[in-house]
């Protein structure tokens, strides 16, 4: 048995385990096993790769030395950052690790193209085209993910929209296509063309991502995740590596599906996310006909209302994550439960910065996951809930999504918090939500506002309940 055969066999098994692992990750019961299996497969695949004929195992070889340093350095930085980061910041870290993968795929293509420019024999037009495709997608995913990271991390605050932004993007895209064509058909490939090609692709990734607002970022990160998968698959064809082809394609297609699910949950077609932003269309029209006024409530009154309720539904949003109020919420839940109040959590599919983001945070605080219900499960329960406690959520409970066809969020499925007997909204100030749309729920007769930082407000509720 040759070493080549062993390596190919390991790659095949690795690909199979990745697929099984992803399948197991689709259920809370088996998810942990799934990622551990996939991890073991990844380690084995990486280790046997040292036996590949392209790699010299001579420790004096500069290639091997640098490779080991790179693996250790990359792993160490990623390990420490992933261990240390707070759960609330996880979305941007996923964006970062994803960008690294895209960058790696683009860098693989870069080495191949530089070799071609240096006079290496071409493996044929198809291989060259695939290398170039993987390079574009990987580079866009890399620079786009870095921008997504910067935005979510708060390093880059505003959404940059240049005049004629779309025209510039189209120009950049055509430039990438043109230089991609030159690079993939060149005999020999011009080194300068390769450089221009990569610069244009990286700039394109930046320009595509800058105009997209923070609310749409989860969809974009998911899309970049799928794109990186595709880039990896294309470079897999170039390197003739079955594990990369299969794993990359599986991530590409599952990632695309996930992206669609997310875009659908927000009722925003993917093209809208990518090519327009909130507020530019009809945001002003929705503000006119608000009836009623905002009524303020004191924490003690709110505490009494909840303590004597039979059923309380908590609706957390990104504001809860920012305020780190999940542990306090859990404490309040325990107190209410001790008094015989049924407490449930209602999670909108796009609450927070990613689907499932709220679930992760609540689980971190120790909330039972069978108490955490999604939109379809919880909506029928609002009409017989005594209190809906909205904390840091806004657009996902805005009834105009049901009633006002002019509103930019019209048609988005929302949580029917307004149908509860009483609604308490914990909010930092009177401003509008992420989308900048006024929330009619706040003005409704059965709604009362509890102003303050989420964690502090829940703390006051807790001491209020304790005093009873």
């Amino acid at each position, binding site marked *: 048995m040759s070493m080549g055969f062993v390596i190919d066999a390991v790659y095949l098994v690795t690909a199979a385990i*990745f697929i099984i692992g*992803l*399948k197991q*990750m*689709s259920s*809370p019961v088996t*998810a*942990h096993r799934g*990622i551990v299996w996939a991890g073991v497969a*990844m380690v084995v*695949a*990486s280790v046997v790769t040292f036996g590949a004929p392209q*790699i010299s195992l001579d420790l004096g070889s500069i*290639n091997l030395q*640098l490779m080991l340093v*790179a*693996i250790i*350095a*990359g792993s160490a930085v*990623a*390990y420490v950052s*992933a*261990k240390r980061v*707070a*759960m*609330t910041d996880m979305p941007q870290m996923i964006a*970062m690790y*994803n960008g*690294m*993968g895209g*960058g*790696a795929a683009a*860098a*693989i293509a870069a*080495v*191949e193209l*530089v*070799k071609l420019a240096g006079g290496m024999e071409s493996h044929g037009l198809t291989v060259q085209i695939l290398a170039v495709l993987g390079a574009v997608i990987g580079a866009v995913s890399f620079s786009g993910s870095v921008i997504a990271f910067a935005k979510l991390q708060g390093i880059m605050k505003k959404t940059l929209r240049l005049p004629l932004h779309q025209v510039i993007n189209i120009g950049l895209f055509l430039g990438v296509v043109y230089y991609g064509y030159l690079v993939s058909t060149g005999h020999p490939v011009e080194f300068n063309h390769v450089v221009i090609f990569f610069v244009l692709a990286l700039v394109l990734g930046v320009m595509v991502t800058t105009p997209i607002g923070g609310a749409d970022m989860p969809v974009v990160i998911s899309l970049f995740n799928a794109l990186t*998968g595709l880039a*990896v698959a294309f470079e897999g064809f170039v390197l*003739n*590596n079955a*594990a*990369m*082809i299969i794993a*990359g*394609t*599986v991530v*590409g*297609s599952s990632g695309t*599906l*996930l992206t669609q699910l997310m875009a659908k949950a927000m009722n925003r077609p993917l093209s809208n996310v990518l090519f327009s932003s909130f507020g530019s269309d009809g945001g002003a029209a929705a503000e006119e006909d608000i009836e009623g006024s905002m009524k303020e409530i004191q924490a003690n009154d709110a505490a009494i209302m909840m303590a004597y309720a039979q059923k309380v539904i908590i609706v957390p949003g990104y504001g809860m994550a920012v305020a*780190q109020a999940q542990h306090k919420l859990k404490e309040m839940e*325990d107190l209410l439960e001790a008094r015989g109040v049924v407490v449930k959590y209602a*999670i909108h599919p796009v609450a927070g910065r990613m689907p499932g983001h709220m679930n*992760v*945070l609540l*689980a*971190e605080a*120790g909330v039972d996951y069978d108490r955490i219900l999604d939109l379809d499960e919880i909506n029928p329960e609002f009409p017989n809930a005594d209190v809906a406690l909205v904390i840091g959520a806004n657009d996902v409970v805005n009834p105009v999504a049901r009633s006002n066809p002019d509103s930019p969020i019209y048609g988005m499925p929302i949580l029917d918090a307004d149908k509860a007997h009483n609604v308490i909204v914990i909010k930092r100030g009177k401003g509008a939500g992420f989308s900048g749309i006024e929330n009619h729920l706040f003005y409704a007769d059965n709604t009362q506002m509890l102003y303050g930082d989420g964690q502090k407000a829940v703390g006051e509720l807790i001491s209020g309940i304790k005093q009873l």
Partner: protein
Amino acid sequence: MIEGLPALYIFMLSAFTGYEVISRVPVILHTPLMSGSNFVHGIVLVGAMIVMGQAEGTLELTIGFIAVAMAAGNAVGGYVATVRMLDMFQTSKPKAESGQGAAS
């Protein structure tokens, strides 16, 4: 060599597999699953290693080094992030450790 039609077959079948595998995922697992698939494309590491093994000259070695380092970061970061998230779903009992997320 994987070329021509067989390559397309692999591509097509993998694409359908990916679609099927996650088509029935509860919303609570969306973020961990995205993180998990993010880890899976960390397999780009093996490609980066092979390219690095063949690199000649300073420029190729530099790009190869970047490729390997980033790919390793993708794999390790993706794994740790996913495990940390999934750890929270493991038990439905309240956990004592509360400082981890609130640390920053």
